[in-house]
C-alpha cells in the first residue's frame, strides 16, 4: 500500500496547519508532512509558552482527520502528484540490529499539493561566524526551546528584522542577560516602518510589548557585529555602529538578517518564481496546475498572513472557491505589510564589507571569501571552489553570495537533501510511527507545562 491523499500539505507551520485543517474540514483526505518532530514550524516551535492562536490551531489539527507525518523530509518530487520523503533520525531499534533503511523512505501521492515550506534566516559571513555558539537569532531561540539552558548566559542579538526583538524578549524572560541588540537598519527607516504600521495595531502593540520586556537592553540601530572571537567557541564579539567599535564578551551570539523563503521544492516542481518568491494567483495556485503555495514562500508576512494564506490554499485546493475568494480579499489588504517589511529589512551595502579574505563563506566546504571573489557566476564559483556544493546545498551560503556578489542560485535538482542510497532506489510507505506521534505529544505536554 502506498500513501495516497486528496491533498498533501508540505510544511506544518502556521500556513501548513491552517491549510491541512481547512482542507480536511472541506471533506478532503489530507496528509501533512514536515521534517520537525512536532507541528508549529519555527514560529510556533514548542518548548516555550505558545500564543493562543497556536494552541487553537494545534487543537483543530488534533481534532481533524489529517494524517500527520512528523519527522519526514521531502527530498524528491518526480511529478507534481508524487513526493518522496525520508524519515529523520533513522536508526535501528537496537544498537546491534541491522539498519533497515527501507522503512524510512516513503512515497506520497496526491491530487493537489500545497507548499507551505516556510522560510529560513539569512546569514551573512563575518570573521569568526563559524565559531560554535554563534547561531542565527531564530537558531538560538530554537536551541533554547529545544532545552539549551540560557539563564544567566550573556547573549548578543544582531541582524535585522522583527525576529530580533521577539527572540531577545523570549530569552530575557528565561533570565538570559541580553547585552545588546544590534539592528542593521538605520533608525530613520525603522521609524518610517513603524509609522506605516498604523493599519496593523496588533503588530505595533506586540513590538512595543517586546521592547518593554527588554527595556534595560540597549537597542542599537545601524549597528552590526564585525567579528566574533574565541578559541574553540565564542568568547566575545566586536560590534560597530557608525565609526564606533567596541567589544562585548558573551556566551552566545544570535545573528540573522531577516528571512529568505525555502524555495527548493517549489523550484523543483517548476513553480514560477518572481522577485525571489513563489508567484501565485489570488487563490494561491502557482504556475503549476494543482500546486498551491501558502505562507512565507509567497512573501515574508508573518503568522497572521500565513494562517490566512493556509486557509485560502486549503479551500481553493478543495474546490471551495467562494469561501476562498472572500478570504483572498482579506489577504489583499495585508500585502502592504509584506512590502513594508521587506523595505525595512533591506541590507545596508556596507555589510558586503564584513568578510575578510580568509572568512569562510561556504561553511560546508570551508570555501573562503578570497577564493570566490575572482569568479563571475555562482556556477563558475561552484565548479572551481565547491561553494554551495556541500550537504546544505547552498541553503546557507546561497543568500549570502547573492548579497555579496549578486550571484543567483542555479537550477534545483533532486535529491533536495542528502539521503541514503536505499531511499533513492527503494520507495516505500512510511510506517506511520507511533513513537513519532508519542514523542510529538510528549513534546507538547512539556511545552504546556513550561512556566
Amino acid at each position, binding site marked *: 500500500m502506498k500513501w495516497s491523499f486528496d491533498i498533501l500539505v508540505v510544511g506544518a507551520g502556521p500556513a501548513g496547519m491552517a491549510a491541512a485543517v481547512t482542507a480536511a474540514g472541506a471533506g478532503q483526505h489530507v496528509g501533512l508532512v514536515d521534517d520537525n518532530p512536532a507541528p508549529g514550524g519555527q514560529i510556533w516551535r514548542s518548548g516555550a509558552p505558545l500564543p493562543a492562536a497556536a494552541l487553537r490551531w494545534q487543537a483543530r489539527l488534533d481534532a481533524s482527520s489529517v494524517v500527520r507525518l512528523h519527522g519526514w523530509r521531502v527530498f524528491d518530487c518526480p511529478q507534481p502528484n508524487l513526493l518522496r520523503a525520508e524519515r529523520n533520525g533513522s536508526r535501528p531499534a537496537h544498537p546491534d540490529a541491522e539498519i533497515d533503511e527501507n522503512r524510512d523512505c516513503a512515497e506520497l501521492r496526491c491530487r493537489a499539493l500545497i507548499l507551505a515550506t516556510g522560510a529560513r534566516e539569512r546569514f551573512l559571513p563575518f570573521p569568526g561566524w563559524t565559531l560554535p555558539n554563534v547561531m542565527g537569532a531564530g537558531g538560538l531561540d530554537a536551541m533554547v526551546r529545544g532545552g539549551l539552558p540560557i539563564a544567566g548566559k550573556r547573549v548578543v542579538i544582531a541582524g535585522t528584522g522583527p525576529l530580533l526583538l521577539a527572540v531577545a524578549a523570549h530569552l530575557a524572560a528565561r533570565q538570559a542577560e541580553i547585552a545588546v541588540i544590534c539592528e542593521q537598519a538605520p533608525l530613520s527607516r525603522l521609524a518610517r516602518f513603524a509609522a506605516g504600521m498604523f493599519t496593523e495595531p496588533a503588530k505595533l502593540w506586540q513590538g512595543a510589548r517586546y521592547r518593554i520586556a527588554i527595556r534595560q537592553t540597549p537597542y542599537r540601530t545601524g549597528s552590526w557585529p564585525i567579528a566574533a572571537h574565541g578559541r574553540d567557541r565564542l568568547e566575545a564579539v566586536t560590534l560597530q555602529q557608525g565609526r564606533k567599535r567596541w567589544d562585548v564578551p558573551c556566551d552566545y551570539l544570535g545573528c540573522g538578517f531577516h528571512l529568505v523563503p525555502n524555495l527548493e521544492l517549489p523550484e523543483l516542481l517548476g513553480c514560477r518564481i518572481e522577485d525571489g518568491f513563489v508567484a501565485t494567483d489570488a487563490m494561491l495556485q502557482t504556475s503549476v496546475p494543482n500546486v498551491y503555495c501558502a505562507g512565507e514562500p509567497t512573501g515574508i508576512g508573518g503568522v497572521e498572513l500565513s494562517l490566512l494564506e493556509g486557509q485560502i490554499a486549503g479551500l481553493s485546493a478543495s474546490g471551495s472557491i467562494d469561501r476562498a475568494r472572500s478570504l483572498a480579499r482579506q489577504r489583499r489588504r495585508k500585502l502592504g505589510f509584506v512590502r513594508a517589511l521587506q523595505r525595512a529589512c533591506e541590507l545596508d551595502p556596507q555589510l558586503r564589507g564584513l568578510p575578510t579574505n580568509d572568512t569562510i563563506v561556504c561553511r560546508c566546504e*570551508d570555501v573562503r571569501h578570497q577564493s570566490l571573489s575572482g569568479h563571475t557566476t555562482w556556477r563558475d564559483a561552484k565548479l572551481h571552489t565547491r561553494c554551495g556544493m556541500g550537504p546544505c546545498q547552498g541553503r546557507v551560503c546561497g543568500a549570502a553570495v547573492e548579497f555579496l556578489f549578486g550571484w543567483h542560485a542555479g537550477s534545483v535538482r533532486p535529491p533536495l537533501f542528502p539521503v541514503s542510497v536505499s531511499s533513492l532506489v527503494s520507495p516505500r510507505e512510511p510506517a506511520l510511527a507511533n513513537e513519532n506521534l508519542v514523542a510529538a505529544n510528549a513534546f507538547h505536554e512539556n511545552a504546556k507545562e513550561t512556566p
Partner: protein
Amino acid sequence: MSEPARRIPVTVNGAIIQVAPGTTIASAVLMAGQTARVSVSGEPRGPLCGMGICFECRVTIDGVPHQRSCQILCTPGIRVTTKEMTEGSGGSATP
C-alpha cells in the same frame, strides 16, 4: 503531566547527562559541553540554524553518522558521538 521532573538519560561522547523531555539532541550536545561536527578544514562547529537546514549540528546517533541533531529529540539511552570527520567515508564513526 504526572511526572514533571522526569529526566531522560543520554550518553554524549561516553558521558551520561540527564535532560528534560522535549530536549533536542543538539541542545544535549551543547549541555554536555561538546561541539558537533569538525569541518573539512578541521574547525569545530556547532548548530547554526536550529531548524535542519545548515547541517552544522551533524553527529552520530546510535552508530548512524551524519544525523541532524537539532531535529531529533532525546530518547532514553540514546548514544551520541560528535566530532566525526564529516566528509569522505560516510560510515567511519564508531559509537
